[in-house]
């Protein structure tokens, strides 16, 4: 193992260049540790984001050696000895260095009907949802999303059609379609069934391949396609 890591880090916004830093190699070192070392010791002007450092907040995602990854849980030792190339996430506007503008990503969650719509009054009794029921299991499979946008950066459809709602927003919509307590189903299905919605997905599965939480947006989107088709056949959405 070489003693130092050669880290090529993107500097600038949409236009910019790579700058190379030499960072000492350590045990159990993550890519986020490398970026933090650069910012704390070598160049305090480097911009990047993180919060929890333990894979919960979803703010540290970057493109590492050409793949989108959560950097706080990506160990440098797993990436081989070559230089590390660290860029901002793809498919989102670059603000500065490693920070991208997440607004388009989260706007699409809203557009996909990502809000829970209560169907019962506040005073009503608790809804009983059987943990083993099929709908609850569908929702369970998708609710651990941390909103990191790794899937969004990996999706070709987002690159080709900037309006495409993307895997994370559609996965969120699917967890709500599977929520028996939700009262906004018709509107949500109409929102996800448009040109830039679930039917645009080509099932390439890059989202599933890269999701750090091992979620499966491809399967969620397939569920939406079926639900939208069923609604259309019934003369609904």
């Amino acid at each position, binding site marked *: 193992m070489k003693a130092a890591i050669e880290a090529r880090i993107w500097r600038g916004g949409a236009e910019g260049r790579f700058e190379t830093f030499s960072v000492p190699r350590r045990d159990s070192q993550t890519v986020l540790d490398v970026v933090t070392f650069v910012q704390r010791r070598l160049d305090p002007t480097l911009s990047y984001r993180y919060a929890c450092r333990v894979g919960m907040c979803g703010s540290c995602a970057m493109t590492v050696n050409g793949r989108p990854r959560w950097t706080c849980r990506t160990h440098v030792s797993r990436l081989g000895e070559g230089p590390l190339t660290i860029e901002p996430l*793809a498919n989102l506007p670059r603000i500065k260095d490693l920070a991208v503008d997440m607004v388009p990503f989260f706007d699409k969650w809203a557009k996909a009907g990502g809000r829970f719509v209560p169907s019962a009054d506040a005073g009503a009794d608790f809804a009983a949802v059987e943990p083993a029921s099929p709908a609850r299991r569908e929702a369970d499979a998708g609710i651990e999303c941390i909103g990191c946008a790794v899937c969004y950066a990996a999706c070709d459809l987002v690159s080709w059609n900037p309006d495409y709602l993307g895997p994370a927003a559609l996965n969120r919509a699917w967890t709500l379609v599977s929520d028996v307590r939700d009262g906004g189903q018709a509107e949500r299905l109409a929102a996800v069934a448009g040109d830039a919605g679930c039917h645009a997905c080509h*099932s390439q599965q890059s989202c599933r391949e890269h999701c750090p939480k091992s979620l*499966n947006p491809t399967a969620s989107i397939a569920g939406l396609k079926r639900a939208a088709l069923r609604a259309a056949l019934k003369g609904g959405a």
Partner: protein
Amino acid sequence: MNRPPPAFRHRNHPAWWAFAVHRISGLVLALFLPLHFWALGQAIAGEAALDGFLRWTANPLAKLAETGLVILLAAHLAGGLRILAIEFLPWSPRQKAAVAASAGFAVAAGLLFLFNVGAA
């Protein structure tokens, strides 16, 4: 001031390659269809013209190209069935196996065709 090279590494997984093959086979088949209809048109135009065309297709290079087309057609068919399974059946964790099976079906169809025309 320069832009970074586009990253391709995130695409290097079986389902993405299956998508690429499906797309490319679809495009090539679309280009081939006019030729196919033209050949059928020759049959209507008269036996001599058709015979001329069929003689041309008997040369080894045309045979090889035809085999390629059969493989593309089989690949496109299998790929389409795989997508339908993803979209209409419950999710199967065996996605790589599905891609491998589609590829195997395409190659098998091509070989069968090749041996058949070889034997003819």
